[in-house]
């Protein structure tokens, strides 16, 4: 009985994360990432370059003994590179039991979205950055583009 209670509470904690998004900025645009996939946010780290990778994979870094690949979201979205500053940080995400770090210009806050407030992305954007989006939400006076992490990593995940 005690065990099921623990499992239940763990499950409900995960359920609590559903619908909650971590928002971050790339330039002027605000993006959202499902909190469910976020492990932690760390400052910039020394990154070891690895040859033969696409531009947007900056290399690998040592996260407490784990070797984690780092992706520059700016470059992944095809936007011009800019120097990292003290607001630049790395969002460590998890997908398929792998950790991947995402470099973003700055992290803003965590928001809760309900399904009704968000609209699906336009269907024609297959070639542009919005092919990674799951929905677009209006929160107060700003618009948050929610990233579908599976689509985002699709080209990089091992087949």
């Amino acid at each position, binding site marked *: 009985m005690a065990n099921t209670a623990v499992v239940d509470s763990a499950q409900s904690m995960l359920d609590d994360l559903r619908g909650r998004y971590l928002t971050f900025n790339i330039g002027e645009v605000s993006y959202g990432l499902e909190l469910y996939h976020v492990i932690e946010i760390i400052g910039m780290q020394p990154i*070891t*370059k*690895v040859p033969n*990778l696409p531009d947007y994979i900056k290399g690998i870094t040592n996260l407490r*003994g784990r070797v984690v*690949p780092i992706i520059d979201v700016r470059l992944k979205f095809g936007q011009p590179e800019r120097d990292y500053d003290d607001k630049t940080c790395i969002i460590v995400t998890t997908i398929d039991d792998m950790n991947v770090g995402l470099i973003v210009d700055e992290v803003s806050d965590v928001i809760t979205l309900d399904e009704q407030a968000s609209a699906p992305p336009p269907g024609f954007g297959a070639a542009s950055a919005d092919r990674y989006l799951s929905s677009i939400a209006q929160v107060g006076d700003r618009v948050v583009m929610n990233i579908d992490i599976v689509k985002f990593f699709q080209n990089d995940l*091992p087949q």
Partner: protein
Amino acid sequence: MAIDASMEPMLEVFIFETTTLLEQLDKIVLGAEKTRSFENSGINEIFRIMHTIKGSAAMMDFTSIAALAHAVEDVFFIIREHPDALGSVSENLFDLVFLASDYLKEEMEAVQAFHETRGNPQNLIDQLSRLASLLKGEEVPPDAVGTDLPASVPAPAPEATPVVAAPAGQRYRLRVRYEEGCQMENIRAFMLITQLEDLCDELISIPDRPESDASLSADIIRDGLILIFTPAAGVSLDEIYAVIEAAVNIESYELLDAEAPLDDFEAVHISTADGPTEDDIPREEVTPAQAARAMLPGSGRQQSLISVHQYKLDQLMDLMGELVTTESMVINNVDLRDMRLDNFSKSARELRKLTDELQDVVMSIRMVPLSGVFQRMQRIARDVSKKLDKQVELITLGGETEVDKTINDAIGDPFMHMVRNSVDHGIEDPQTRRRLGKPEVGRIVMEAKNVGGEIVITISDDGKGLDADKILDKARRNGLLTKPESEYSKTEIYNLIMLPGFSTNQAVTEFSGRGVGMDVVRQNIEKVGGSINIDSTPNEGSTFTIKIPLTLAIVDGMELAVGDTIFTLPITSIQQSFKVNDPKQILYNTDGSEMILLRGKCFPIIRLHRIFNFETEITDITEGILILVEGAREEACIFVDELLGEQQVVVKPFPPFLSKYAVKRMGLSGCTILGDGTISLILDANNLLAQHH
């Protein structure tokens, strides 16, 4: 019969012990099968092995295993007493012992996975006991199943029988088989039984009441529907046959036997269904003297081996890795830089020496000889060649070569596949071989050698070799070609067979050719940091060369700097390092690439910053340093900014996220975390030099 919780700690030991014993058993029997005779020591050894298995299985309450072990033991008991009897039954004997050994191995896996036994060895036990009777020279009617068993079995528990009292009259046993795929066999059986009931005084079916459970269809498909009946007065057997013939979808029926006493049949039947019961009785037949003899080889000897759970060794290895990293963290600590610390340095050297030694010991604990894997291959070669009616001799050399346990475990399956492939696709059948003027017995040679920091294992056969045109053709059809056909070299063509979804055999056989073959082999070998190469000459055979690292975990490396990046080059591949003082020493090839003449030999120069496209300020050849490295096939000098010093590093694989980008083929085998927390990339001389071409 799941085991008791209190027994769990014993279970691991039991599985380990039994598996080891079974491997020994295979080895002895394989050897004996070759010479067609048993050495005395071999018989004793088998007897002892079976006795031990029986004893521990009984202790663990795995009665079916104990029963089977007992049956094998019985056979060898007789052989030991009457070695002459062996001649008449040997072929059968070897097969049966192998079957028993396979059965036990499967059960071991079941026990490991589910903590209980899964199968019913009764059939094997019956065969073995029949063999035992034959050996004893007893007159055995050929169809009497397990003659000596029912005699020693007490009358079966009456409630277990679905039968009512036996009336008089001739009793028949009939097997009815339904057409394949006619569906609902159980219902059809039920209908037939209802039809026959009127014609019989008594009718029993196996399975009983088939209509009650649809899953009984499977039994009927496998064993047929068995009817045991006594025709009613005035009804002839022919009338019954007529009814059966009139029923639809019946493929065939046969009269198994006519037997008078039903009780006897039931006795046999019950004992077959309920294996464990007869185990207790025959076991008492083991005389004390016999038991004492069986115990003899093991007793009184000093036990100097202990078995350790691999998990603990893995843990030890991990800790060792941490220790090496931490040690370099302390010794190369930034706080200590530029300080004169004579005593500290002295102690640090001591510490280094000890950790080195400790590491060697930890490594050696994990090393196991390849002979175990080779042994299993013998078994595979034997089984496959027997099934395919080919004659194959597998010669293994260098079985004493040791590799890390993890590697040893990982290469078993790929090797098995390759040996199967060689027998199935490589070696021709005896007629063809005779026609080609080859010896009828095909030969597969497996050889392991220790070359530098690597183990090189070759598997070569003298079969028909690979057909380059066929491979190319197949690859074209499957859309696996990536460049014009004329540009493929022989080696490249052969390597095509290791691409996913490639299988040259048209017909899928039981052993190989499921289309998952060689690419899985390659994946498994690459997973442990190895590489595989194929060479082949038509009609002379094929050779597979597999190179695997001695150990995965820790390498002695030289730290090199290129710009901001630190590389680690395994010491084993470094021949020398030197500075070029005069740029005139550099020669230029016709395509402008740099070379250097060293002791009369010309080596190409590979600039790491250039091939990896890294930024560095040191591009003048006289400012940096050249390192002469040795790959598997070639040598070259690599140009780096500076040498940072020697260090032991713990190899970590690249995150799977990067596996898509062929980082390995670029010449990087993994990465490592240095004392200060930065990541260093580990160079792999073979791939580095190969991709330079």
